[in-house]
């Protein structure tokens, strides 16, 4: 039996996005974790596995300010297994994959996975702390050393290369790219946790926004926040007796890239996420046609085009025209897309917002952004490493 078939998502929790929050990063983490535990209806003491993505980082910048040890301590639990996942793994979803493995091997029954960020607070202290340059004297080879010396201060400079290559190859337009952001912003109006709830965005607003690095504009970039998301995984034989209908993990996919090390192959219109898509679809009889909503990583808008094509959810070179206009990707469209607003409009929950939203949809909690009758959802994460899950309720 596949490991992912032995595990279900049974509870979720998420704080609102804040810039900054008046709660500490640890408090945000505990709020999200306790919400997920109570959501599933288990006792806090029942959590016997704890993992976060990535490990607590001492470098600052707020990218991962909270670790498993202090969370364990504050929750007053004694898990048999704790582990931080790594930036080096298959994207943000690495922690969830490891949690799946811990349950499938019989080590744990309930694994709590969390992702906390405090980048909004960090930037108030040091703007440079969240740039690729960081606070280092010299750039070592794993940290974008082949890009940073050329004044590439942000990952957006790298992803702009992919956007420009896609424009050049397929004749895609700025307006088509703008619809990625406009689509998400529309959905964010119905998401109480979204950073930009109450601030609508039209395609005209998008086109009038300032250029960051061609062809990417302000609204092609997600927004750093303070916030936390928690996902509770449970053994399948226990999940059926909990509060929520179990969310089955139909298939998972993962792959790694080496962008931080400077390795780029192909023609800059595809990423190693292609391998993640191949792996996922090789593990299921379902097909892209079965996906009823797609929660696609959108640290930058261009990610959505590349990911949709990597997962076979749109044809090669067709993602741009598929999303344009926003009709096909609305909640009543053929493939509702980023129904939480995604990172572009809900805030940079850094991958975990997408899995959280997939569960929201499958449990019918979406309110004004609910996809009618959603039984299957795709969630994908990552820009430098890649992870995907096809989720379903029966």
């Amino acid at each position, binding site marked *: 039996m596949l490991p992912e078939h032995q595990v279900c998502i049974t509870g979720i929790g998420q704080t609102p996005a804040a810039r900054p929050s008046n709660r500490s990063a640890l408090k945000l983490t505990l709020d999200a974790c306790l919400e997920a535990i109570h959501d599933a209806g288990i006792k806090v003491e029942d959590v016997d596995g704890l993992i976060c993505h990535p490990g607590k980082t001492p470098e600052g910048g707020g990218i991962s300010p909270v670790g498993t040890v202090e969370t364990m301590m504050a929750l007053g639990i004694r898990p048999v297994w704790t582990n931080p996942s790594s930036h080096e793994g298959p994207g943000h979803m690495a922690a969830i994959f490891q949690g799946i493995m811990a349950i499938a091997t019989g080590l744990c029954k309930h694994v709590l996975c969390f992702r906390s960020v405090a980048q909004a607070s960090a930037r108030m202290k040091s703007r440079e702390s969240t740039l690729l340059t960081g606070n280092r004297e010299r*750039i070592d*080879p794993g940290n974008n050393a082949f890009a940073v*010396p*050329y004044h*590439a201060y942000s990952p957006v*400079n790298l992803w702009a290369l992919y956007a420009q290559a896609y424009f050049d190859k397929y004749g895609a337009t700025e307006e088509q790219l703008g619809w990625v952001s406009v689509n998400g912003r529309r959905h964010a109006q119905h998401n109480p946790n979204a950073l930009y709830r109450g601030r609508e965005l039209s395609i005209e607003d998008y086109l009038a926004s300032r*250029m960051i*690095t061609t062809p990417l504009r302000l609204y092609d970039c997600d927004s750093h926040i303070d916030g936390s998301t928690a996902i509770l995984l449970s053994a399948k034989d226990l999940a059926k007796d909990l509060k929520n209908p179990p969310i089955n993990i139909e298939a998972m996919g993962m792959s790694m890239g080496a962008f931080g090390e400077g390795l780029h192959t192909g023609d800059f219109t595809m990423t190693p996420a292609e391998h993640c898509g191949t792996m996922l679809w090789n593990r299921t009889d379902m097909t892209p046609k079965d996906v009823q909503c797609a929660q696609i990583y959108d640290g930058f808008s261009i990610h959505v085009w590349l990911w949709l094509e990597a997962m076979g959810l749109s044809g090669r070179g067709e993602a741009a025209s598929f999303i344009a206009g926003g009709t096909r990707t609305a909640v009543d469209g053929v493939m509702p897309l980023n129904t939480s607003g995604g990172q572009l409009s809900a805030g940079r929950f850094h991958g975990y917002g997408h899995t959280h939203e997939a569960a929201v949809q499958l449990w019918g909690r979406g309110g004004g952004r609910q996809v009618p009758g959603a039984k299957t959802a795709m969630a994908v994460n990552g820009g430098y490493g890649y992870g995907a899950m096809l989720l379903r309720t029966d």
Partner: protein
Amino acid sequence: MGMPDRKLPLLTTETEAFWTGGKDGCLMIQRCTACGLYQHPPLPICSACRTETVLPTAVSGRARIKTFTINHQAWVPGLDEKFVFAAVELEEQAEIYVFTNILAPPEKVHSGMAVKVCFEHHEDVWLPMFELAGGPDAS
């Protein structure tokens, strides 16, 4: 108007040749003497045939702009001028890409243009930069 100091790379056993070749006017790209493949970024072994016979090798310095971006955002104080950040594909081998700046007015730059290497010296680093070579575009 101007540009801030560049944040320089740490030189390592593998990367030193690439970052210092400009001292002798050469773009140094690692090549496997067993299978003949170039690889960049440099590594201790050939990632294709796994032999240790990789050597920094001077290449022609001729390349084409594969893709590029014009940066507008002033990420740090003093970053006042628009500039071009690009991936150039070396003529020696398909899909060997080097990140660089294109030393040309941003509005003149587009994908497919022929470029040639030049170097910018800072401390113990000679950053490979590229300028327009003229001639027909590949695009």
